[in-house]
């Protein structure tokens, strides 16, 4: 059990793509620290390096410079075993559910495979019970779905199936990379409810990566604003949204259509 103050933190993380003339600094000297049970949003435009940062946090990309600390220990994912262990505690929900499943497996297998990441082995009956339970938490009918392939499901069902996977693994940290950008405003509410429920049940730290400022304001405790690979402003949700200090943040907020304020289109 992790007792360190910060569950996940990073120091001076930089990631560079390409070299020489084509050099792109996607993430530029970024530092952060997340506490347990906190909900953090990382907000920025397309191309600001949000997704690169998420991939670095998940260990899918190697940072060019800087260190990540998990539970106060420096992260080292060179070995397969350490990666597996890390991924049993840090998990992700991605933007595009269509490309996140193995199309050859049926839903039942897909969900049962997640249980392999758990440390304790379960019997077959226990596995089925756990899977059914997870489906219930995300309002999916297991009996209806288990014999289907992922491409037979609708977009909303797939997105919920992804969240069902995180309910099975019960990670300590969940990185949600634009989890609601593919679904409409009405289903968005139910997806957010499920993620908040996961937080309440397991004290999971959730990192939302999004360009939807309204969503970030609604769910998060802390908001980080990213521009061109740098974190330019951070603060509590109220500080950032109601009193932004940086010009860029003010501009970003101005571009969001709101209900009670005019939206200048001239």
């Amino acid at each position, binding site marked *: 059990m992790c007792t360190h103050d910060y569950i996940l933190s990073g120091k001076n993380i930089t990631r560079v793509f390409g070299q020489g003339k084509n050099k792109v600094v996607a993430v530029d000297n970024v530092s952060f620290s997340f506490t347990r049970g906190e909900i953090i949003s990382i907000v920025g435009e*397309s191309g600001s390096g949000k997704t690169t940062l998420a991939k670095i946090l998940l260990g899918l990309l190697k940072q060019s410079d800087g260190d990540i600390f998990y539970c106060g220990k420096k992260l080292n994912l060179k070995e397969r075993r350490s990666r597996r262990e890390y991924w049993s505690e840090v998990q992700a929900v991605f933007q595009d559910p269509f490309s996140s499943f193995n199309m050859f497996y049926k839903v039942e297998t897909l969900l049962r495979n997640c249980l392999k990441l758990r440390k304790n082995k379960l019997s077959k009956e226990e596995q089925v019970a756990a899977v059914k339970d997870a489906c219930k938490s995300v309002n999916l009918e297991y009996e209806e779905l288990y014999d289907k392939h992922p491409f037979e499901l609708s977009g909303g069902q797939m997105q919920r199936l992804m969240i069902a996977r995180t309910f099975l693994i019960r990670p300590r940290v969940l990185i949600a990379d634009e989890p609601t950008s593919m679904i*409409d*405003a009405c289903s968005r509410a139910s997806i957010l409810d499920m993620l908040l429920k996961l937080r309440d049940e397991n004290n999971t730290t959730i990192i939302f990566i999004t360009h939807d400022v309204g969503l970030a304001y609604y769910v998060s405790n802390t908001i980080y604003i990213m521009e061109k690979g740098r974190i330019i402003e951070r603060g509590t949700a109220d500080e950032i949204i109601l009193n932004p200090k940086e010009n860029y943040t003010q501009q*970003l907020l101005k*571009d969001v*259509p709101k209900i*009670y304020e005019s939206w200048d289109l001239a």
Partner: protein
Amino acid sequence: MSRKLLKVKNLKTYYKTRMHEKIYAVDGVSLEIEEGKVLGVAGESGCGKSTLAHSLMGLYIPPLYYSQGSIEIDGKEIIIDDKEYLRKNVLGKEISYIPQAAMNALNPTLKIRKFIEDIMAEHRPNLSKKDVYDLAAERFSNLNLSPRVLDAFPNELSGGMKQRTIIAISTILNPKILVADEPTSALDVSSQKIVMKLIKQLLEKQYIKSLIFVTHELPLLYHIADDIVIMYAGEIVERGSSDEVIFDPIHPYSKALMASMLVPEKGAKDQKLVAIPGSPPNLKSVIKGCRFADRCKYADEECRKSKVHEKILDNRIYRCKK
């Protein structure tokens, strides 16, 4: 009272699946738009708003089929059995369409100018290539798009740029009505605003006369639309001015939609986000009573018995006011 530009009466269209099942995606929609007005269409995914946008073109390509109803643009009926006539005289000239995903709509092997040359070859064959280029360059610079774009391939442009290019191309013949199907759903807020500015410019410069804007983002719709219709399961459940629909919705479904809005404004954090339970009904079978009854917290036995008809109250149309 100004001229009615578009009149849709009881339009019904359906999809036919490979199993020969019919899906009634647009089921008895009636609409009217006055000249110079913007009509917003909102609803959740699968409610038939994109199908409605397609159906308004009058061109039905399988698996979409026409069943009944009429569409009049400026007094002329466009539901006719002559596809060639439609293509030549209606599409692009009277009514035009912006697809949702601009990335997939542009052929990556052609330069942008080639798309415009294609349109002009069909509609104004006596123009030379040079004239077409000049015309396009003028239109592009009027819309604050660099004419340099004309010589680019689609993959050289960013997402927002592609979407703006598509809009400029599809309005090059000055259509009376533009139907925009979620033109900004794939873009971030800053690009979204630039695209919305472009659409506003089209209206101000009178390149288009009226706009139908389809989206599920209500805050966005509120700022662009004069009137809003809310669709559910192939039907219009409510219609009113933007202020009325956003601040004072009548239908239980519209109320639920308004409760799911997220805006970064004071007070939004304390508001409880309410998800609508369940999922929309299966449109393969004809539903007898109210289509929203299964998800509505006010529904009773009466609701499921007979078809709920549209009612009119001071310029507003609604089906139910529970």
